[in-house]
Each structure stands twice: as structure tokens, then as C-alpha cells.
């Protein structure tokens, strides 16, 4: 029970930080808050027993993402220009996000409760993974076993995506350097 309250407290903090990102115009502050949010998310994942996801989020989200964002800010600008959107546009955007949020909230009412052991998501293929993967792959960590063995093609696709993104970044920035020289 204490676990759940600390999770809710951290998620509340996340929402406050997200609202601060809406208000702030200093991009440096936005990047640092984004890093802090990743770290808090990692803590929430740990409390929810998702340790592998937690350390990936801490390393990749709070580390690499923040470094990339700081690099982009140092190459562009540190301040956001003042808000020039018309009030009518802002109200429309607020309305769109509120309506889509209300739809999602309505959908959550049918969702199983947090930690429900009879939830559909935990009953089907997941039970088989938990029962069989340690014996059939010899890896005690089930997340690793599924990632590298059962869903190996997924991971191959992931590597292809990262490779494509890397090629894209190199193609974009190499050209830029030649222009500058």
C-alpha cells in the first residue's frame, strides 16, 4: 500500500513538471526538466517491478536524450520566442486535448484495476512466458529471454529503426558541416 502512494506522489510530480514545461520559455530549463521527468519515470517503473525498463529509461531517457537535446539547443537557440498564437487557437487546442483526454478517461473505466492478477493482459501468452522461458532459454531474466529469443524479430526490427535513424542523422548533419566549411 505504501508503494502505491509513493507511485501516485511521483506521478503527481511528473504532471506538475509537465505543466512547468508548458509555461517555461527557456529551452535549457525544458531540457533539464525533461531529464528529471525521465528519472522520475524510472523510479515509478522500479516501484511497478519493471526494473529492466527502469534502467533503460534512466540511461537512455535521462542520459542520451538529455545530451542530444542540450546539443541541439547549443546549435540552435536557448530561448523560445514569446507566444504568438491567437487566443482562439489556444482555446481550440485546449478543447481538442480535453476532449481526447475525456475519451481516454471514459475508456479507462472499463480497464482492470492496477495489479489485478486476473486481468486479461496477464492471463494469456504472458503466463506461458513466465512458466517456460527460464527452462527453454536458460536465462533467469524473463524480459531478456523474451526480448532476445521469443520476440527476436522485434528486436531485429528495432535495430533496423535505430540504424535508419543513425544514417538519417549522419546524412543531415554531414551535409551541414560541409556547407559551413
Amino acid at each position, binding site marked *: 500500500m505504501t508503494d502505491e502512494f509513493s507511485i501516485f506522489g511521483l506521478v503527481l510530480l511528473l504532471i506538475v513538471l509537465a505543466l512547468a514545461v508548458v509555461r517555461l520559455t527557456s529551452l535549457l530549463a525544458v531540457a533539464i526538466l525533461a531529464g528529471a521527468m525521465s528519472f522520475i519515470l524510472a523510479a515509478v517503473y522500479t516501484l*511497478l517491478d519493471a526494473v529492466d525498463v527502469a534502467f533503460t529509461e534512466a540511461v537512455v531517457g535521462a542520459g542520451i536524450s538529455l545530451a542530444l537535446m542540450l546539443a541541439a*539547443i547549443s546549435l540552435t537557440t536557448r530561448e523560445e520566442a514569446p507566444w504568438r498564437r491567437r487566443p482562439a487557437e489556444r482555446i481550440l487546442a485546449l478543447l481538442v486535448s480535453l476532449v481526447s483526454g475525456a475519451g481516454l478517461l471514459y475508456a479507462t473505466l472499463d480497464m482492470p484495476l492496477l495489479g489485478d492478477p486476473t486481468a486479461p493482459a496477464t492471463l494469456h501468452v504472458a503466463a506461458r512466458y513466465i512458466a517456460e522461458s527460464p527452462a527453454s532459454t536458460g536465462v533467469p531474466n524473463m524480459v531478456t529471454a523474451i526480448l532476445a529469443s521469443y520476440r527476436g524479430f522485434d528486436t531485429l526490427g528495432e535495430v533496423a529503426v535505430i540504424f535508419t535513424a543513425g544514417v538519417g542523422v549522419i546524412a543531415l548533419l554531414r551535409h551541414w558541416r560541409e556547407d559551413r566549411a
Partner: protein
Amino acid sequence: MNAVEFVMGHALQWGSVALLMIGLYIVMTRGNLIKKVAGLNIFQGGVFLFYISIANVRDGTAPIVHEDAVLYSNPLPHVLILTAIVVAVATTSLALALIVRIRESYGSIEEDEMAEADMG
């Protein structure tokens, strides 16, 4: 089911919906491209949190074999989100590289100033 159980069981889902809404609002209202990427990352954080909350099982432990463990949390959403986090960073880096190039070509990363440059 009483009201307290209902709220406690859904609170995390509502929290991730709130993050989605805030991220969507930033993407729609802000003209600065780096701010838009930050909003997109908040949106993604909401989705990830939602998935991980589905995987949680009460009194379960992390899905690593242990003698004393009775229940494990569901490892499948963990795997999906692990992949999604890494892909999110790949797309973020591509977006930021594009933003750096846009800054070089337009001298600005504000949407309205880019539109003006295109008009004139």
C-alpha cells in the same frame, strides 16, 4: 467494489492520460520546434507509463527467476516498452538533427518565422 478501491486502481491510468493531454497541448500550441519535441516526449512518457501499469501484478516481483517469488509481473509489456524507449530516442535524435538543419536554412526554429520566410 468501493470508491476508494476504484480510484486507487485507476489513478495511474488517469495520471498517464493527464500526461498525454499535456503533451498533446504542447505539440499543438507551441511554435518552437524543440519545445514540440519535448511535448512529444511527454506524450510518449504517458503511453509508456500506461503500459507498465498494465503489467503490474499485486504482490508480484520483477520478472527475474527467484526461489521465494510466488507471482511475477507480466514481462511482455516490459519488453514492448523497452523497445519503444529505444526507438523513441532514435526518432528524437532524427527530429533534433532536422531541427539543426532547419535552423541553418531558415535562421529560426519558430514555426511562424519559418512560414514568413517561405512567403517572402
